[in-house]
């Protein structure tokens, strides 16, 4: 459309393929190759092996996979409840007040993750809410980091849900509670599912804040990958990273498929 000559279009296509290969494809291929080979001391890696992947499902690596999934699901479900609650409560206010109050819920996404981690360390390692060294401090930190994104997704969804259906339900005599459970929440469900998908992926990949507060018993995948590569087992780290990406993508894609089916219904 922009370029009409055949040669020009072919040249541009080639440029795009080269840039894509250099910036995006090559890193993926490199990670995959290193995780599948015995050693990489020469130009290309040598010796095919699946041992790095079997390592990823044993011992400390398996524990960190379980830890990451526990933290991701715990914090995401809590964030979902909180996001739905906050968005529904805010909707009853005038548009102007809504705009200002919602800034408070967006604010955590404006704070660097390392600073959120530092804040949690300072606040929760002593005093009334002491939970240093427990799973809770990781969950809470992840919750704070993802809460703004969940809230944003849910309130966007709530804006698209037409008020007419709810008004009809009310005028037909539905109580507020009945209306919430049978009208509003089912209409909101697709956005809730996609908010869950996003927050799971954010929590699975979080490193900055977790590095500061992680307790010895709950080492998440990114932290485990870092300590593997730091110790020199880069191939094991690469395999674990692939496992992490695969699990995250699987969760996201299946939740997004659920969300799409809910919209069509």
């Amino acid at each position, binding site marked *: 459309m922009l370029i009409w000559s055949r040669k020009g279009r072919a040249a541009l296509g080639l440029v795009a393929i080269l840039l894509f290969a250099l910036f995006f494809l090559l890193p993926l291929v490199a990670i995959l190759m290193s995780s599948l080979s015995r050693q990489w001391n020469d130009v290309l890696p040598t010796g095919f092996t699946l041992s790095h992947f079997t390592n990823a499902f044993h011992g400390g690596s398996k524990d960190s996979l379980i830890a990451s999934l526990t933290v991701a699901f715990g914090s995401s479900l809590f964030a979902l409840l909180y996001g739905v609650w906050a968005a529904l409560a805010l909707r009853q206010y005038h548009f102007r007040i809504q705009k200002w109050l919602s800034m408070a819920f967006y604010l955590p996404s404006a704070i660097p993750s390392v600073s959120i981690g*530092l804040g949690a360390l300072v606040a929760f390692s002593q005093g009334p809410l002491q939970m240093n060294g427990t799973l809770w401090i990781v969950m809470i930190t992840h919750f704070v980091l993802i809460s703004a994104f969940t809230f944003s997704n849910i309130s966007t969804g709530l804006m698209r849900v037409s008020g007419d259906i709810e008004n009809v339900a009310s005028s037909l005599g539905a109580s507020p509670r009945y209306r919430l459970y049978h009208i509003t929440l089912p209409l909101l469900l697709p956005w809730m599912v996609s908010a869950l998908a996003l927050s799971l992926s954010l929590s699975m990949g979080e490193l900055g804040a977790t590095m500061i507060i992680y307790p010895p018993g709950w080492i998440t995948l990114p932290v485990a990958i870092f300590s593997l590569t730091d110790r020199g087992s880069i191939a094991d780290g690469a395999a674990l990273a692939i496992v992490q990406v695969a699990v995250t993508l699987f969760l996201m894609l299946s939740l997004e498929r659920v969300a799409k089916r809910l919209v069509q219904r």
Partner: protein
Amino acid sequence: MPLFLPVEQSTRHLRPFLWLLMPLLVLAVLFFWPLSLIVQHALSDDSGHIGLGTFWQVIESRRFLGALINTLQIACFATIGCLLLGSLLSLILEFTPFPGSRIIGRVIDTFIAMPTFLITLAFTFIYGSAGLLNGTLMSLFDFDLPPVDFLYSMKGVILAEITVFTPLVMRPLMAALRQIDKSQLEAASILGATPLKVILQVLLPAALPALMAGGSLCLLLTTNEFGIVFFIGAKGVNTLPMMVYSKALLESDYSVACMIALINIALSLGLFTLYRLATSRIGTRN
């Protein structure tokens, strides 16, 4: 009847507030309270007095100034890189599609779900001292030392951030480009406009809000990026988040760590405001 009305109205005003109190309370305890403790630690010295002592100590230290300049440099160069690469790829993928261009677009989009440090890990295999590129060059030209040595420097960080954050520029940009009426472009080129002129006078004005939104989001995320810098482990590249981490965990100097975190938060809040302004412009245009 009139007797009941005031009561009914007052509960109507009170109830939304009670509902809102619950999430606000969660936010206050889990987010605002730790944030206020950071401010408190940053502004009080060892003996507990409130003052700007730590602030001047931090501002005058060479290491902090270096970290601040590094952070800003990395953020600016990485954002410019993301905008250039993202614009070029979006324009080609959208306006001169070729076999496979849709798959390329989808693969780039999945990078949004990937952890940032993954790319750094990959880069050590490609550009590291014993990696693919250096290995090839050394066996081809008989170098004694690895000839390509930029990974463990600021350039390596910038290159990794360009790869990680370009998809965030492309997503809104592709959406904006898709909405442009294609007949406008045809009309412009039939009337004799060169491709460059079409890009500058037709596409750029229409895509500007999306570019601003993507660019300001990049600026925010590159300023606060931790994983990439941490995984590269470059000794010379110290950024603000890196310094917060090392001051707090390695040196246990909490008041300085909190002061640097506070400065980082202030910078980040400024960039967040910029991002909100940019996205609200998209909202009014569509």
